[in-house]
């Protein structure tokens, strides 16, 4: 930045397997957003590679990167970044505009996604008429519009209240379990990060620690709190009644 070179990422090595839910934690300035931008083909590293499906995306031209962003990656932002002049359905339809889907197919898919995230009946509302939690749900639906293999979430709960935070992260967890979508979530909130499968700690551009989150246990169909058996569709543990 300016005349002084600052390394946002330094010697970082990260492997993400298909279907994983990764949470990346770290203090401000640790390189979390930069990592996400590189993973999302929004930025190129000064050195090194970023390999997606056996393809080094750092060597691809902008046109190819744009196709990857459209078809393989979904973005969720902290400030939602919905277009204020479009309603919920139109915002969700946006990534599908350059695909071969017809108008009616796009609308149908958009409505299905909004229903999936719990926003039936709010399709015609513009972002100004939705709460923060609802806007983030629309953003999630938008990120899933083209059925991406990976969803990158940059502080998806950063602008939400406590109740909505957990609802959103649970929704992401549900998506990961039900649809097998790979999710990489950046957060500074430890409680939110716990809901992932793997939690990586990023410091000064490097991954310094790794631990498991409760989602791994849920995937093994065990309650992460009491260890009893659970079903994939359970919202609460039948034994300890804690919210899953």
């Amino acid at each position, binding site marked *: 930045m300016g005349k002084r070179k600052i390394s946002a990422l330094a010697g970082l090595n990260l492997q993400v397997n298909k279907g994983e839910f990764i949470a990346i934690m770290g203090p401000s300035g640790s390189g979390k957003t930069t990592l996400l931008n590189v993973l999302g083909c*929004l930025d190129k590293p000064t050195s090194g590679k970023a390999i997606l499906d056996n393809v080094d995306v750092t060597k691809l031209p902008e046109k190819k990167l744009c196709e990857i962003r459209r078809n393989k990656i979904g973005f969720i932002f902290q400030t939602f970044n919905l277009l204020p002049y479009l309603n919920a359905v139109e915002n969700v339809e946006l990534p599908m505009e350059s695909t071969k889907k017809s108008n009616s197919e796009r609308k149908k898919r958009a409505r299905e996604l909004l229903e999936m995230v719990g926003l039936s009946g709010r399709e015609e509302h513009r972002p100004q008429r939705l709460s923060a939690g609802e806007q983030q749900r629309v953003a999630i639906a938008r990120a899933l519009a083209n059925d991406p293999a990976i969803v990158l979430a940059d502080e998806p709960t950063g602008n939400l209240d406590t109740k909505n935070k957990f609802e959103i992260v649970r929704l992401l967890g549900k998506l990961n379990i039900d649809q097998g979508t790979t999710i990489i979530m950046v957060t500074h909130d430890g409680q939110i990060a716990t809901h992932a499968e793997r939690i990586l700690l990023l410091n000064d551009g490097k991954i310094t620690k790794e631990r498991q989150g409760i989602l791994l246990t849920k995937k093994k169909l065990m309650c992460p709190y009491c260890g009893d058996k659970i079903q994939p569709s359970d919202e609460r543990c039948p034994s300890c009644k804690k919210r899953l």
Partner: protein
Amino acid sequence: MGVLTRAIRNISRRKMRALLVIIALGFTMAIMISVPAGIVANQEATQNLSANYDRTVSQMEQQLTLIECTNSSSSTSSSSGGPFPGGGSFPGFGGFGGQTNYMNESIVDAISSISGVEAMAPIIEVPEGITTRTFASPYGGRTFTFNASSYTIVGVPLNSSLIDNYSILPTNITAGRNLQQGDTEVVVLSLNNTEYFGVGVGDKVNILGTNFEVVGVHGESDSSGYVMGRASDIGNLYMNITNAQTVTGHKGEISTLDVYAENNSATLVSTIASEISSMFPDLSVTTEQSQLQTIENLYNSTLATNESAISQTQTVAFQEIIISVLATCLIVLFVMLYTVRERTKEIGTLKAIGFSNWNVMNQFMLEGILLSLAAGIVGIGIGSMAAPTLSGLLLPHMSSFIGSTFGSSGRSFGAGGGRFVSHGAFGVGAATAVLSPELMLLALGGAIALGALGSLYPAWRASRTRPAEAMRYE
């Protein structure tokens, strides 16, 4: 949801800004199209001038045996507001600026004795219903104030040999019939007269206390009243000369004596004219032949002046159009640059969700084009209403009236459909700057092209925005 709908919604997000931009662009577009409209009007006017000249000369050539005698000792002091020295009359209004003096009809017998005179038509023309009028020039809205009559009583001798052989009656009878030998207490009105009196063929009309029957209507209505270069009968109503002398209180008097030579030999006509002048020095004697020469000289001079003015006008017009084009492009450029900067984060989001550089560029170019197209429509609206004023303000003026060699009697003209134009009032025909359909289509096409040109750079800038940086923009 397509790019067009998004573009329209984006423009309408900032309604006041969009409105101000469209109005500003609209004015530059209005100037861009009013100027060519003014040029076309100038060219049409010059064509009218030539057409009017040809028509008038053609009419005058039928009357080369005519020698016109009027009383030259008319007062000019009562001219009020008219733009012509000696008062004179305003074509189409039958107006008057000076005071008409009448002659005793006994001169008819005296002149009949001159060798070579074949026939004579004594005529009386009396303007009535005098009011003050204002005339607006089609160029730049200049106004002239003058006294004009509402109608002119023209008394002609209803002699079959005169009627059959000479053009002493109006042509172009549009209803009823023309006057004929033996008619008395009947009248042929002009279309304007029928509106003024509120009567038609078969009705009775009261003229200065006497009732006349309307037997016919002549001529075409000219609402502007400004007709250049052709005989104008707009205000004239025709009756038997005896009736005219009685109702106007001019018994035994005439205002004009038309003398017809046996043939159109220049020598004979000139000789007769000279003899009349020497017999009656107070008379103003003009021959159609000399008038023809005067008009030809005037026409050539006017044409040269107008052609020079048109050439100068085109140079000025070209410069003004270039300035308008530049202004339009710059307005669009700056507005779109500001818009792109304002929506940097949105551009980053669009790219993050898979929009290509081309999609982004498309979006912003379309917005620029739509703004410009709306401005083009507004510009056409403004131009339709204000093209004459705008072109009048922006283009050098063409001279509307060139000289005036009205006879000093100040007589109004137009007695008889075949009579010649008022002497010397040759100028540009009244061609108003209007927007033709072709010009409007050109304006719309131009608006689209200029919108595309002005928004090209901002749209390219938007497409080159780096998404990672754009997302951090506040």
